[in-house]
């Protein structure tokens, strides 16, 4: 899938200048406006490899917009998003800005959604299998006639999907339709779906939204496990401060699309700007 020549040609321009060795993702001077509203304003931050990185901010701070700019659902007006794509020898640095939305997952960047985006009519297993969409090589013809390659692929990805469901503890429900499953289960299905894509970086958009306390507790250990077992970096937006402070290595705080601070959780808690953004300015 990776053209080695392409890789070399990219290297001198982007690899050395845009992404330090330990970085997995760098958002650089990102801006986007909707009409008169500047939703993201000259925002920069970098996520290190294998880091669990949190993006926080009060309601309307533009967190999800940042995610959408990274994953190219929105085209940013200005700025770059450099991403370390691929594994091992195929590793390379790509500027995500301007890439087609559907090509992002192929680079190893995969996301979940704030309000789970699950296909109600499909079973949990089939939903997870959608995460392997780009890895299927069999043509429509081979699939319609169930030729050996199509069967082989289907079998091996089914196994992989079952493993992902088992990893998250919902293997027993794999054949049930997604419609009617509890919200917590659907959130896990979305997570399992991202794991199918051999991700380098997983973006979680409010993974704890709608979960109860014990489910949130379980989520933080799941996030650690995903990072370690699947060897990837995690970037998350979350309102549940308890989860964010507990699970993140570093946190970037934004307000009204602008950068406030980027530091370890303890430092962020003490940061004056962040406190003001959340609690309002102190009257002096």
């Amino acid at each position: 899938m990776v053209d080695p020549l392409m890789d070399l040609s990219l290297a001198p321009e982007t690899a050395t200048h845009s992404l330090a060795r330990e970085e997995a993702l760098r958002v650089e001077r990102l801006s986007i406006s909707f009409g008169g509203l500047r939703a993201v304003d000259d925002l920069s931050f970098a996520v290190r490899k294998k880091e669990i990185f949190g993006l926080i901010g009060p309601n309307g701070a533009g967190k999800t917009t940042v995610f959408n700019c990274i994953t190219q659902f929105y085209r940013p007006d200005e700025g770059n998003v450099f991403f370390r794509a691929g594994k091992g020898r195929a590793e390379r640095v790509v500027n995500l800005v301007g890439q087609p939305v559907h090509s992002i997952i192929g680079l190893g960047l995969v996301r979940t959604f704030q309000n789970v985006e699950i296909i109600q009519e499909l079973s949990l297993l089939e939903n997870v299998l959608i995460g392997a969409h780009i890895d299927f090589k069999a043509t429509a013809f081979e699939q319609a006639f169930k030729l050996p390659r199509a069967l082989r692929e289907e079998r091996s990805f089914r196994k992989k999907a079952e493993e992902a469901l088992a990893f998250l503890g919902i293997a027993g429900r794999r054949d049930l339709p997604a419609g009617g499953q509890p919200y917590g289960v659907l959130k896990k299905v979305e997570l399992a779906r991202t794991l199918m894509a051999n991700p380098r970086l997983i973006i979680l958009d409010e993974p704890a939204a709608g979960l109860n306390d014990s489910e949130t507790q379980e989520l933080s250990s799941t996030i650690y496990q995903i990072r370690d077992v699947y060897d990837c970096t995690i970037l998350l937006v979350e309102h549940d401060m308890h989860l964010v402070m507990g699970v993140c290595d570093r946190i970037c705080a934004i307000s009204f699309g602008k950068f406030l601070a980027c530091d370890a959780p303890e430092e962020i808690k003490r940061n004056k700007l962040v406190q003001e953004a959340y609690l309002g300015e102190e009257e002096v």
Partner: protein
Amino acid sequence: MNEMNESPLASLKPSPWSSPYLRFVLFGLLAASLPLLSGSGLMKSSTLNYIGNVLVYAVAALGLNLLLGYAGLISLGTAGFMGLGSYIAAYAVKDMGLSFWAALTAAVLIPTLIGLLIGLISLRIEGIYLAIATLCVSEILLKSFEQADSITGGMQGKSVSYPVIFGHTFNRSSTYILLVVALTLVMILTHNFVSGQKGRALHAMRGSEVAAQAMGVNLLQYRLIAFSLATAYAALSGALYVFFIKFSYPSVWNLNLSLYVLAAVVIGGLRSIYGTIIGTFVVWAVPDLVLKKLPVVGGINGLPYIFNGILIILVVMFAPQGISGLWQAKFPLKRKKKEKEEAISGKKEDE
């Protein structure tokens, strides 16, 4: 999540009857046995023609169901592509002396390529542009059928004889069997296709465009796939038509036919293979085989139009999932009735 609160459904063993292939073959055998009935005088010979027609139109309806059911797009050009398929098949066999298989291949491939071109142009923009573009193309094709005398026979129509396959000359009954085999094959292939990776991608596209895109589904590509399949099915349907009916007239391939196919899909039920077959039967066979024999009502002019019109209104109002939806609500065999999660997933907007 604890494994304790498992639903008992998960542990149900599938019975051998749940094999879809067995059911497809049974369906085929059942349909194929109808000529025996007419041979033994239990069924009128003309009835077989109606059923044969249903089988032919069902192929086109299955294709349109892929397009409407998964991509959510409407084609109003079904009839045009069916006509094109029928004339190409007839011309290839009669005027060019090609074999049945070569004629069938050409009759499916050429319209599909044309469809692909139309799709490439009109699918870049979302919305009803495909419907408009296919409507135009269909009308252009219809005019061409009337004018291109040397190929289509103009208003007189084009005639062919029953097909000759591997040196064996078919008659009416064996051509009917051929239709059954073709439809059964199309049903099996469609089933395989929609339950595989490409079908899941189509499902994802319909269920959540953003999720589909995030998972690497190229929306334009999959809309094109759905539309090309709809075109190919329509063309195949037209080719089968001309070999069974032995004639192709321009007046058959009008907008009316496209709307009938659309009605069959909506009445039968989106994304349901058997629903489509039943819908086709309801739309084409029920008015002629049943309603016309009723007293008083049977005498009304344009009865099929009234019947189908009322049916569509009823379906849209009371059973948006069509006949197959009613069936599944009554006998929820494999899929539990959908309960939307809206209560819990109520939007928590961030931005």
